């Protein structure tokens, strides 16, 4: 029951993305505190701002790596199993015959690092779109092809 991990090249992508969020999250309150508070910036305020910024940037650095370590997938004769999540850990199993269609998508940042996201669509109601992010782009394409090729064996109607 071992799972394969996705490409490590995706961690920088997520880190850069998290960094963008962190700049906003850390910058907005700090900026607001510095401009709006009537008091002159004292040592305490500076320390609080610094602490908050450190926390946000620390999380932005740490979370993608941890998320990567908990992300895994396995392709077997039945279909694809995806495990993900850090606090709430999900393991979703999608039988191959249930896959309606699939996408491999790649954002500009992902393209630079050569990774892509595999999206599998089922006819379900809650888990209609299942994403497996951070795959090596070629692996994603190969996975998609494997899943699609053997899909013909199904009964044609995946409902």
């Amino acid at each position: 029951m071992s799972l394969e991990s996705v490409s490590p090249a995706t961690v920088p992508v997520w880190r850069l993305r998290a960094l963008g969020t962190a700049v906003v999250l850390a910058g907005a309150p700090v900026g607001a505190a510095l401009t709006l508070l009537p008091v002159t910036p004292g040592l305490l305020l500076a320390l609080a701002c610094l602490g908050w910024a450190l926390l946000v940037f620390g999380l932005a650095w740490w979370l993608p790596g941890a998320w990567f370590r908990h992300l895994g997938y396995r392709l077997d004769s039945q279909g694809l199993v995806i495990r993900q999540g850090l606090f709430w850990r999900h393991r979703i199993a999608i039988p191959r015959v249930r896959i309606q269609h699939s996408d491999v998508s790649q954002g500009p940042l992902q393209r630079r690092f050569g990774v892509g996201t595999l999206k599998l669509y089922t006819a379900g109601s809650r888990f209609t779109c299942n994403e497996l992010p951070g795959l090596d782009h070629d692996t994603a394409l190969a996975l998609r092809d494997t899943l699609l090729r053997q899909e013909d064996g199904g009964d044609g109607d995946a409902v």
Partner: protein
Amino acid sequence: MRYEGGQPLPEKRLHPLSWVFQLVGSLGAVIPIGVAVALGAERGGLFWVALPLLLLGPLGALWHQWVYRYDFADDGLVIRDGLIFRNLRQIDYRRIENIDTQRNLLHRLLGVADVKVETSSGGGAEATIRVLSLDDARTLSDTVFARRDALKGGTPADDHDAGEPAEGTTLLTLPPGELVMLGLIDNRNLLWVGAVLGAVMQVVSVETLQRLLGPLLRDAGVAWLDQLGLVVAVLLALVTLVAVLAVGKILSVVAALVKYYGYRLDEQGSDLRVRHGLFTRVSVTLRVPRIQVVHQLATPLHRLFRRVALQADQAGGGGDPEAGQGGARPLAPICTPAQAEALMARALPGMTEHVPEWQSLSSRTRHRLARLWLWCWTALTLPPGLWWLGVHGLWLPLAGVPLALIHGHLYARYTRWALTPDLLLFHRGWLWRRLAVVPRNRIQAIRLTRSPFDRRYRMSELEVDTAGGGLGKRRVRLPYLDRRVAARLGSALYH
């Protein structure tokens, strides 16, 4: 049908009185404006602001009727809506599952019908054609199904005529006695009656009632009315409560009688057809091969009358809000448990022959639920308790202990699951009980979740996804499973 630049130009038009129904259909949007006008009339100026808004409704309805066209193309039904922002919709004949007609009193008086075209995609009817004359509706349905069958090259299906009661085996009828019971069980409109009475009480106020009822009570020999003030208030509250219950139940019974009058569930080939309604005749078709989950519900009131309710989630067509509770389609709004079992066998043909071996949840469920309830109880009662009672408020959390223990015990006792070669069954809850029956070959995906709490109690939660419903309470989610059991069940469902 004509074509222009490769685009089909549908030519058939709606019934000349369509705008009336379009207007009635959009009445909900007009009511707030009406209220605003009524309020604004006092202030003068607002009225003239709102008047053009009020006129928008009829004009929009006329516009809709004017521009709406439909027609039969070679391979699909074509519907055009809008002239400036055009929306051309082509629905492949082969994908049309069903054409339902719906008629309320107004429709019947004018000899027209709402026509709903349903496909297997989710989210309600693919198109609602409002309204067509009965002949046009018949033509539409006949043409579509004739062409569908021609395209499919299969045997022509003969049971798709709109609005005509076709022959078939009747599985369930509901006599008025059952409908009265259904009304008594249904609690949904109590909320409304309560809200209305509450609003009335706001206007009338307790003082007015006391002033009205005070002399009566004094005549009846009640002295010292002033000292009885609290008693009168309590009495009034009780009377109000009883009145709310009585009025609510009476309205509910009337509503059930009107809505489900002449309820009939027929089996026609592989379809189950439901018809009911005194004024609004509703006909809903459930295609048995597309049934995804069957739910059986039993509230405490259901159990008092020894009845259950049966619903089915169908693939696609999230269901009409009017036809079902939150999207589910009712198989039987009320029936005996024995009837429910028979109906379930019809809805899931050939799958119910194995007797389920019920398995319980993890042995740690009791403990976990009791603790969860105790925490919630404490969080809810401690702050107000400390505020009003001071130090004595600390006793309040203790009062919740028996409740939490009882709930944990009963929930763990009545919640259970079973796996047969064809079905996954899950029975949940002890006060409100819900049994979900999922055919294993309809399961789209299986998800195991372990929250931080699950990890602490070595549990997992298993959720299965099907192509129908699956929202809100109708999610099929098995919580509090032992971790190993959940993994085994998950892999059994996957393979």
